[in-house]
């Protein structure tokens, strides 16, 4: 089969990056950046870690476009689920009904 093999070194680098980002997210959590920025930073670090796991460990970077489409579809509907629900909750009370 036509796999591009990822080297052990690359896997180790990804591991080191993931461990460093874990340390970073814990450290930043104790710094008060203001409610929203703490959330945004934590979420951004989690998304970065997810991208590393998906691209390298799950070989998404070697995957076919169809796989990317499936993953993109999943992310899209997750954003719809979260976005629509939270926009509802956030805007309740805007209209005095």
């Amino acid at each position: 089969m036509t796999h591009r093999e990822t080297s052990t070194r690359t896997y180790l680098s990804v591991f080191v990056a993931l461990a460093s980002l874990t340390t970073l997210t814990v450290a930043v959590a104790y710094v008060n950046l203001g409610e929203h920025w703490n959330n945004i930073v934590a979420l951004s670090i989690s998304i970065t870690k997810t991208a590393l796991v998906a691209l390298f460990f799950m070989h998404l970077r070697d995957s076919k476009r169809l796989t990317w489409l499936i993953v993109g579809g999943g992310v899209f509907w997750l954003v719809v689920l979260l976005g629509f629900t939270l926009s509802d909750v956030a805007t309740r009370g805007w209209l005095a009904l």
Partner: protein
Amino acid sequence: MPDSTSVAAVDPHAASAHLAHQFEDAEQQYETASLGMWLFIVQEIMFFGGLFTAYAVYRSMYPNAFAQVSRNLDVVFGTTNTLVLIGSSLTMALAVRAARFGTRRQLVTYLLWTMLFGTVFLGIKGMEYHHKWVEGFVPGPGFHYTGAGAEHAQLFFSLYFAMTGLHALHMVVGIVLLAILAVMGARGRFGPAYSTPVEMAGLYWHFVDVIWIFLFPMLYLLGRH
């Protein structure tokens, strides 16, 4: 009518015992398995997504109560478990690599390491659950919380147990799968021609790791500052 021996020579089905008759070749069979696994993972994202959404809604409704009560979780346990799980993803990735190369000993060793890390994770999780039980943080009649907003604190812990419990259940399933693969691997079932089951279990394992990558900051860290 073609000569039957020359047909056999070009027919990939005759060359591979692993190739099912409905597939053109090994590549197509692999892509099909991979796509199916990704579809499964995407529906798992939506499955956990419901819980993530519930958490986001309630956290946005009761930010102070959630921030306050979340400080009762142990960051040392949480951080350790995050690193353990990342380590298990590394050994899982190396197991898949070993399966592709057909290095039997390495494959089994890496699978056992992955299972060990997974078990350590569950052990630490079990200790945390025990602490929360003793401290009276398990929702229900025994829930005991002296801070402000006890109702919302209970809501936080309901979500905590639902999310981490579902995640832990996925870990248990993963460890069982890896045990089966370790036995198959020890019997020399995987190699350059066929490593699909190990790869698919790898996708599942990494996905479970990703869920924790989000659970950890959401539950343990957001209310710390």
